[in-house]
């Protein structure tokens, strides 16, 4: 083979695919940065270790052993088989054919044999996953929020992966009968070679090219599918675990604006009429009504979610028929961030108020008030997404900006304020029990 028109087409396809992907990934980055700043760059050593364990090591994924096992097959297959894409890229650009075959010799054949085995395992895992979703119909894949696109998305990803793996195997299989084959036959594809046994050398060559192109164009197309799919998790799972909350799950952040105000209230020497300090911005909204009120980690969490539904399956509210589904909270944040991002694109870089918000237009109050803050969803997430943090911020908005909590909760809060207890008991009676020892 030599350099020719095919290489120019290849190079063009490669550049266009990468450029479009970069543009769309950039939009997701921009949407993530709609959120407020939060410092998650401390404790770097722990963060690398956490990412190594949870994302690379899949430590939380295997908590459900069946899904965990098959997911590892696809994950390892994806990472390792992509080494072969390196060779495809070199061949595609320079017009070579299996450029690594002769320098690597026997190692090459071993490597390809290994990739073929992985490809078969990936196909098996994808079939198992399709089975679980569509035949076995595991309940967590069929909750309300999964209707329509999310269900299709899940199936498309699995089907595309099967097709890509077959392209790889058939490419090798067609080459197995070629007299000019530079290496092989290989472990798995030699058994598929009989499909091509009647073909001429010319025909085999064409078939090999067709599968070669199908494989690489398929990969480039799949790359560009990612930004529109839950499958973007293959990228964001890593930063998502790096920036994860490393504190005990029970530790909720203390709002610093509130701290300043409370300190001022409790300081007898503070001047309540003092003008705000020079350069102090407009007091920000307490809690979150829309995605811009969240922090960027919350929004990154939403784009890292692959809708597996382990959070929802563990949620006590969801299990007892309440509307709350932590997965839906994450999907709503992502959908709203997409809408806000598209709004910004359509309005030359600034957000034009569309009269809508994350609260009410996407997430209902009924969902938010059903949460017991038990952290089961946070614990369950294989990539350490924190739906509870978002729920709490939205509760803060409802209570501190709107005073719209339920009557009983307002009563509880009045009691805390007046009696130092959530019930209407006199503080003076607090130690009555001590005389009954």
């Amino acid at each position, binding site marked *: 083979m030599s350099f020719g028109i095919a290489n120019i087409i290849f190079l063009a396809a490669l550049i266009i695919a990468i450029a479009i992907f970069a543009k769309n990934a950039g939009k997701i980055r921009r949407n993530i940065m709609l959120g407020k700043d939060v410092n998650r760059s401390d404790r770097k050593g722990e963060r690398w270790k956490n990412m190594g364990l949870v994302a690379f090591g899949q430590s939380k994924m295997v908590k459900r052993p069946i899904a965990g096992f098959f997911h590892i097959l696809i994950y390892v297959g994806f990472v390792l088989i992509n080494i072969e894409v390196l060779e495809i890229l070199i061949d595609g650009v320079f017009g070579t054919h299996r450029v690594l075959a002769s320098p690597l010799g026997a190692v090459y054949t071993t490597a390809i044999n290994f990739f073929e085995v992985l490809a078969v395992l990936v196909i098996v895992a994808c079939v198992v996953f399709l089975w679980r979703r569509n035949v076995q119909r595991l309940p967590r894949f069929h909750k309300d929020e999964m209707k329509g696109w999310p269900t299709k998305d899940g199936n498309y990803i699995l089907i595309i992966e099967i097709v890509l793996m077959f392209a790889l195997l058939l490419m090798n299989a067609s080459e197995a009968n070629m007299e000019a084959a530079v290496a092989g036959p290989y472990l798995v594809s030699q058994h598929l070679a009989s499909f091509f046994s009647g073909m001429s050398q010319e025909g085999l060559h064409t078939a090999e090219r067709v599968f070669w192109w199908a494989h690489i164009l398929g990969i480039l197309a799949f790359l560009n599918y990612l930004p529109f799919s839950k499958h973007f998790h293959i990228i964001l799972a890593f930063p998502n675990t790096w920036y994860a909350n490393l504190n005990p799950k029970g530790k909720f952040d203390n709002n610093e604006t509130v701290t300043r105000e*409370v300190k001022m209230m409790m300081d007898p020497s503070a001047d309540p009429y003092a003008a705000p300090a020079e350069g102090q911005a407009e007091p920000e909204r307490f809690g979150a009504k829309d995605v811009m009120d969240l922090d960027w980690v919350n929004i990154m969490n939403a784009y890292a979610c692959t809708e597996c539904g382990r959070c929802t399956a563990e949620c006590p509210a969801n299990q007892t028929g309440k509307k709350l589904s932590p997965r839906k909270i994450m999907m709503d944040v992502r959908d709203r961030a997409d809408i806000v991002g598209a709004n910004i694109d359509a309005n030359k870089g600034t957000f034009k108020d569309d009269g809508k918000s994350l609260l009410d237009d996407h997430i209902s109050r009924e969902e938010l008030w059903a949460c017991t803050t038990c952290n089961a969803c946070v614990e369950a997430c294989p990539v350490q997404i924190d739906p509870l943090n978002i729920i709490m911020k939205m509760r803060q908005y409802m209570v501190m900006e709107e005073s719209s909590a339920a009557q009983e909760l307002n009563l509880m809060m009045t009691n805390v304020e007046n009696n130092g207890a959530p019930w209407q008991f006199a503080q003076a*009676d*607090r130690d009555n029990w001590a005389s009954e020892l």
Partner: protein
Amino acid sequence: MSQQSIPSMADMMAQGKQPEVLFWVGCAGSFDDRAKKITKAFARILLQAGVNVAILGKEESCTGDPAKRAGNEFLFQMQAMTNIEVLNGYEIKKIVTTCPHCFNTLKNEYPALGGNYEVMHHTQYLKELLESGKLKIEGGKLKGKRITFHDPCYLGRANGEYEAPRKLIETIEAEFVEMRRCKSKGLCCGAGGAQMFKEPEKGNKDINIERTEEALETQPEIIAAACPFCNTMMSDGVKNKEKEGSIKVLDLAELVEMAGDLSS
């Protein structure tokens, strides 16, 4: 049992004394009739073990946990800062509490507001007393009793403490049986996040019923709890199933005391 009483910090201060640990009672432990029994059981154990302990008494106030979880950060921080002033005024170093919600808030959310204490849940403290030999259980009255344990979210998932309560059950030589969902996968009782103080949202079941059914599957004689709110929720669940005659919901402090003949 001991006839001693538990002093307040104000009394201690007046005598120029400092306790080794402050018992933070919490609102449920102070006012709720059921939870008061847990408070008293734990106080009796402390006194029996000769622990130099005090309470804040009338100076204690809600940690602010239910306000914070309901979304009222303002009220939470008001409560926290008032409590921190009191605690720091008494130079408190170590706190033990029978409520996982108080435990979590004092331990995790007070430091950033100026309240730095060593905070222990009473199951951890009891485990330590037993391990150090300050407390011995000799009666074995609960030996062989079939007991299951409900993990409180704010002790377990929130703070990673699963072992201390289980160690106590082991110590009283009960026949321990885990529920299907336990430890990090433990199902909430339904009270957390200020749910205790409101009606649940519309659904097809109450969470405490779901959890009680799971507990009943283990055919226990006793459901052990380690949180006054879980205790209420599970007790209500057992009543709902009309099993209150045969199954008791008891706190680990009560179980340790009941196990019998505590000595120091």
